[in-house]
């Protein structure tokens, strides 16, 4: 069971989690990720996408996750348009019987979404607006899943304090 939505409207994390849990009473673990517009220098952020391809790319990523792990339900919502600091950009929610599968699948979906789904961010700052550059670290985050299907690669999530 998977739900994918690309839209301007905000989402409510509690309602999304309810929908995940209701999809299958056997789910003991729900992991979700929410991406926010960071404060600081940014006045606003505009998300553009490639209508049609976006939904297909997200569906393919979710299907890949469902092949790798036993998941009860997956929900992905990605907003588009102009967002202010603190606003929610993306929700990925995964329900599974076991927490390891839920954590792994949620992170997997985010890593692929960041590198394979056709969204682009333009930031507005006091100095004007500019397109955000892709980060090489996002490619690395994705690539670590390719070494062995279904496994989490080593020493990649270290916190460089």
């Amino acid at each position: 069971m998977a739900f994918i939505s690309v839209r301007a409207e905000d989402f409510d994390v509690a309602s999304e989690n309810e929908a995940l849990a209701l999809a299958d009473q056997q789910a003991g673990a729900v992991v979700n990720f929410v991406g926010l517009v960071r404060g600081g220098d940014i006045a606003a952020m505009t998300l553009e996408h490639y209508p049609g391809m976006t939904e297909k790319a997200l569906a393919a990523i979710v299907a890949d996750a469902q092949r790798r792990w036993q998941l009860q339900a997956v929900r992905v919502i990605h907003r588009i348009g102009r967002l202010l600091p603190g606003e929610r950009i993306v929700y990925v929610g995964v329900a599974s019987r076991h927490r390891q599968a839920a954590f792994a699948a949620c992170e997997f979906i985010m890593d692929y979404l960041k590198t394979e789904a056709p969204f682009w961010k333009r930031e507005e700052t006091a100095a004007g607006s500019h397109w955000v550059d892709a980060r090489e670290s996002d490619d690395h985050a994705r690539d670590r899943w390719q070494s062995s299907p279904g496994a989490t690669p080593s020493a990649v999530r270290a916190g460089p304090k």
Partner: protein
Amino acid sequence: MSLRVLYFAGLRDALGCAHEEAAADGIGNVDDLRRQLAGRGGPWLALLEHKSLKVAVNQAMASLTTPLGDGDEVAFFPPVTGG
């Protein structure tokens, strides 16, 4: 043959073009199309020079060697930055 070609984000801004119908005779694959479009010169040279340009054919990630046929939808864009 005829192709629908789309441009996104910074590339679209640089080209001043979001999408076009391109007559594309003698085009076998994405690389052929890219070279033909770059032949317009000016900002279109970005199609050759952009280090990490991405391409999708019929809304799936593709590469320079992906073959093209009549009516295909081809999109060029910079690396994605969503999430």
